[in-house]
């Protein structure tokens, strides 16, 4: 199999094995004398109140949504950018229209106040 991705797979596998090896060695040689105080959640010495898996701000979700749209858009632009040098002005204008429509989206989001962190 003459596939360049095999090489990438080696990188991913060895890249995962190296930290696993380091952590395993540390696990072998380190002392293990656990007690409930050591295992308690660290909050600057103050007793933890309630669970920490709590509800979060909706603001994070909105930023993630806006990010998703622009992420998909820039990924669409990569094939365009690769070929643009050989295709002339027409292709450039197409790309500019594409980006322009999305900038309109950004402006809309901005005007609606969705980019404010409150």
């Amino acid at each position, binding site marked *: *199999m*003459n596939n*360049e991705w*095999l*090489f*990438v797979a*080696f*990188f991913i596998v*060895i*890249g*995962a094995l*190296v*930290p*696993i090896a*380091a*952590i395993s*060695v*540390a*696990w072998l*040689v*380190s*002392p*293990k004398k*656990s007690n409930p105080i*050591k*295992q308690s*959640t*660290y*909050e600057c010495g103050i007793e*933890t109140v309630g*669970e*920490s*898996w*709590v509800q979060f701000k909706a603001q*994070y979700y909105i*930023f*993630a949504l806006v*990010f998703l749209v*622009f*992420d998909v858009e*820039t990924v669409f*632009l*990569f094939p365009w*950018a*690769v*070929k*643009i*040098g050989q295709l002339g*002005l027409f292709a*450039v204008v197409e*790309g*500019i229209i594409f*980006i322009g429509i*999305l*900038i309109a989206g*950004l402006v809309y989001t*901005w005007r609606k106040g969705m*980019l*404010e*962190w409150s």
Partner: protein
Amino acid sequence: MEFWKDPLKAAADWLAGILVGWGLASQVSQVIIAFLGVLILISLLMVLDIFLVWVERKTVARFQDRLGPNRLGPFGLIQPFADIIKLLIKEDTTPGGADKWVYNLAPVLSMMSVLMIWAIIPLAPTVVGVDLNVGILYLIAAGAIGTLSIIMAGWSSNNKFAMIGAFREVAILVSFEIPMLTILLIPTVLSGTMGINGIIESQSLWYVFLSPLGALIFLIAAIAELGRAPFDMGEAESELVAGYNIEYSGMKFGMFYAGELLHAFTFGGFWAIFFFGGYRFFGLEKVHPFLAVAVLIFKAMLGYWVIMWVKYTLMRIRIDHMLALNWKFLTPLAFILLMATALTNAILKNSSILIYWAGMFIVNIIIAFVALEIARRVSTAQRARLEGRKGAAAA
């Protein structure tokens, strides 16, 4: 003579000869050699990582007008090894309410996401891990796995500080990915390829001269992607203690720490690759592959030094300012710069190199000047409004 021209290839051929001599198929032996090559490269990276700990500590000491590690060995060079021994024999506490599997997986993914980037970095014209034709997106994909490791670490620790730190960090990371991706389109437009090696090969004129503004935005976005000061919202010490990795100790913390340092060095390298010609330095790279590697490492070190310089000079920005900087300034600016670059490239690409360079440069300077002028006016107006409100409250 052949050996001196390209020692790595000669060594690989020699090894292939031995393996085929043992009766292995030539394809199988190629795979084994590739595996060994990856193993050696990653081992060297880990050694470099240990060295980076020393570099970082020594440099921050200089910035803060102190000496830094200087007891163990010459210039404190042995200090990182002492640090490793300490990390190894330190007790590894796991918080009681933690989600064990996710908790232990997060540091591994964090380190892996950095190491896997090196698959596409060309160290020299002939020393390329693998020249993917989607190299740039591969870099972003590795970053996505790093983002995931942060959210895993923050969630599994069952700690409110860790959770808040992880959420803030991820919000910053994903936000700054947009200007980063957009700026990475500029080298793609200029070189007509997404392969990292192709981008370096086409930089007979470094792209920093064609797109100085792009190089600057890339640096800002890269620092944010690294989660370093002034964008280190995830681990704001004074409010979140240590952020997403607060509950980690021993070697697991070490993995986050080492991963962050290597990540910073890697992005220094990518800054050099995309905008400063990578391993190219006035034809030096053609003399010997090892010389090219040395040039790239040197440039990456310079990039890393600039990142450290920013980190230890500027103070942390508030999260709302940080997100406003990204969405209201860098993102529109990056899009406008991309459009202008594509247009100028299409108009001027057939004219002489001097006109091409001058055109690109002037376009960049004009956009930078206009953007800064608008930002200055808007911020002056905002400041005046805030001060007026404060004055009214005082009266």
